[in-house]
């Protein structure tokens, strides 16, 4: 089965992008993602548990991330927690979003915006 085109996902929702960014650094459980996601990503401050898990559910459904069997976790297996890993599609989507943002940023720099702030 063909993977969906990563470009279909961009622009990404900011909180989804934030989760992808956290997971690019390695597998993580829910609370770790909450901790590491940049506060600005949601626009509403720190990500709350309910919101996070609904995002995770959505991302699982869209194959952006996968859920790890509990034994698969490296190091001391924490059996209470469920870990999440970014999928190949997830990486592509994150890259596509990053490219889009970089282009956008580059373009905004031609308008002297940041100096004015």
């Amino acid at each position, binding site marked *: 089965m063909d993977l969906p085109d990563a470009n*279909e*996902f*961009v*622009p*990404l*929702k900011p909180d*989804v992008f934030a989760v992808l960014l956290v997971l690019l650094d390695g597998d993580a*459980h*829910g*609370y770790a993602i*909450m901790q590491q996601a940049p506060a600005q990503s949601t626009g509403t*401050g*720190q990500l*709350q*548990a*309910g*919101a*996070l*898990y*609904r*995002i*995770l*559910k*959505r*991302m699982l459904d*869209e194959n*952006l991330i996968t859920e790890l069997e509990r034994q698969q976790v490296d190091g001391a297996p924490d059996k*209470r*927690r*469920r870990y999440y890993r970014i999928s190949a599609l997830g990486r592509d*989507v994150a890259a596509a979003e990053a490219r889009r943002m970089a282009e956008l940023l580059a373009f905004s720099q031609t308008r002297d915006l940041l100096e004015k702030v």
Partner: protein
Amino acid sequence: MSRSRGPLALRASVAAYRLGLTLYPSEFRARFAGDLVEAFTDDIEVRYALRGLRGLLLQLPGAARDLLTQSLRERLEASGIKRPTGSSNHPRPKSPPRSVTQMFNGILQDLRFAFRMLTRAPAFALVVVATLAIGIGATTAVFTTVNAIAFRPLPFPSPEELVFIWYTEAGRPHGRNAVGAANVADWEAMSESFTAIGMFRPWRATLASVDIPQSLLGARVSHDYTLVLGIQALYGRPFGPEDDAVGAPNRVMLSYETWQQQFGGTRDLLGRHIRLNGEEWEVIGILDPGFSMPRRARTDVISALRVDLSLTNRGSRNLNAMARLRPGVSLEAARADMRRIDESLETEYPETNLSMRAWVRGLHEDTISDVSVSLYALFAAVGFVLLVALANVASLLVARTTAREEELAIRAALGAGRARIIRQLLSESLLLAALGGVGGLFLAYWGSQALLAVAPSSIPRLSEVSVDYAALAFASVVTIASGLFFGSIPALRKRSSAASLRGGRGTTRLGAERLRRLLVTGQVAVALVLLIGAGLLINSFTRLLNEDPGMQPDGILAARLALGSEYDGSEEHQAFFVDLLERIEARPEIDEAGAVFLMPFAGGSVSGSFGIPGRPEPAPGEEPNSYVQVISNNYFDLLRTPILRGRNFDQRDDWTGSRVAIINETAARMHWPDQNPIGKTLRLHITLDDQGPDLERTIIGVVADARQWALDRDIEPFIYAPFRQYPVGSMYLMLRPQGTPADFAPTLRSMVKEADPELALYRMGVMSDFLGRTMERQRFSMLLLTGFAAIALILGCIGIYGLIAFNVARRTREIGLRMALGASSESVLVLVLRETSRMAGIGIVVGILVSLALTRFIASMLHEVSATDTTTIATMTLLLAGFALVAGLIPARRAAQVDPAIALRSD
């Protein structure tokens, strides 16, 4: 799972969060609940470790908001009402923001479509709309009536402050007995609870200054009474203290309606004199339109009471009292106040006030107390009918939705969202509810008109009944609520489109069927409750009809005739009635004619104590008591009431003869036990025209007991006096004409007019109708409850029939298969009937249990029947079971006739 044995605040927060997680759909919860709790626990532990309790508390509002919003969103998405969001932030072209116009068009489209769907199933639509209309219509009609009588405030200023004051006798704490003017004057002087205590006495006045003499209903009232009720004059002036003074001229206030109907509403009537009861009365004022005194059907005229306290005997009690509580004084406080006063009056006047106690009773309670039980019973009954109707409609809708499952699945497969389908189903049920509501409103209008037509005239405040905005609002609320209620049942059931498309008999259908079974069982139970209630009332009414009145009231024409004040003195009264009766009896078409002071079943009573010469003087308050009746000589012959001992009155018993009396069996048994009362003497302490004590009378006969007020009232002791020795100013004329009694009415009228053109006959009617009217309330309750029970029974049977027929149709193939494999038609019949019996059986058991709990509330409406009468319960249960069986048998027979070959080929 729990690892943190941390501080209580932490554990409590986690427990609350865990509880809050139940807000999420179960599917989401199963997948993520554990992780959510872990994440939440980690989070608040860190905050607590860093910043203590404050850190923890600061974190909670955010968590709560997260819980509420995310669970709601997840639920909306899971139920298909909201489209699931993806990770992408693409604007979604499929759901552009909807403008108001689009939304309106959408609703219109829904309604049009709903209408089309209903016209495609006209029988279904008709049954549902009719069922709803009956339920809503009956509810609204009864609501209108109950609201007018029981709940709408009485039409007087601050009605909650108004009270009646009655006298009670020792041993009868809740008797409503008249009071006396002397005591009222003392109450008013000594009491601190009332702003005023008013007195009144019912008054019938014959108005003679118009073409046809009219009988007016009204009252003589004290000036304080007008203050208590706040009686104002629309034109002219109300009564002042000077009008109520002894020796003040005759003055009246007329009702607006009398003024309009009898005098054409001319203003110059004010100050003019009119003739009432043969006297001149000055009209000083016109009352407000629609004014009616409490507990009176209508008030045509009021005049001042003009009581002369110096002439009043403290023992005479012939007035009614109403008072207004001072603001802030409670009913209890007023009662305590009155008890104190009555005790001091008792000490002061032991011979008249022994154990006389006032009973202060709120006007509202006093007005509706006689009917409140039947009103509430009626309301409960009609509520049950509505329940059955709604259950029936719900069951029909569920069946229809089940039948349409494939259609809905196709629409879902073609892209209709779940929300769209739910909206469509809700539109359909709301449209049905609206049509039913409109039909119901019409029925409510006709129903309340019909209720008024058959309602007993004795029910207070009937004139205030009209379908009003409250009823309209009520009908709308019931309609919309019912629409949402039964629309939501099929709409909210989870549906698997795939299973439906396959035409599978999955769990969805089982669920729907279980729901329908429950609804039908409930209907059976409620119908049985109503049937048992109706059965008890029918049983009670039959027993009432079978009571022996002790007389034959059929074929008697009666009318009351009151002489005006120009007939002053006993001899003239006597002469007039003797002469009139003789002339009536002389007519060839009249078999018998007689007269009586208070005709049986026409209301009213006079009772008093009497002495028995030769017996030791009884203690005050323990004198023998009896009701007193004044009759013409042939009264007992006319009514076919036999004289048991001694003789009847005859020509000897006139003004010049020795005074005589006849007593009834009860009086003989009560006051002359084990003795022959013939030849004994008695002496009444009062006379009817307040002329002081009566003369000593010899008992010449004992007459058989007969009912005086109603068939369900106990027979009381009676002393009869011949009217030629005990003349009264008003009598009921009673005649037995040949042929139809009512045909003689015009002749009687003209004969009375011939005798005196200023006299009016009133309450003319056939005596058996008077008797019938005493049973109006029972008849009314019985008819209504029977009607409701019949509706419930029919609706319940429609419910059973509908469900069984639907199931048989659905299982045709299965039945065909069974028969192909050798099942006989009988066994198929039994198979289907078993389903009916199971539902009916459970419904019957529940219905009987509920009845046993509820019927005691109507016990006070029952005559000689126990509220748990087993015969009635058994009969009604059998009746219901019979109907249920027939309802189930029709589709069952169809099932038994299934041709296996055809059934197996069918789709």
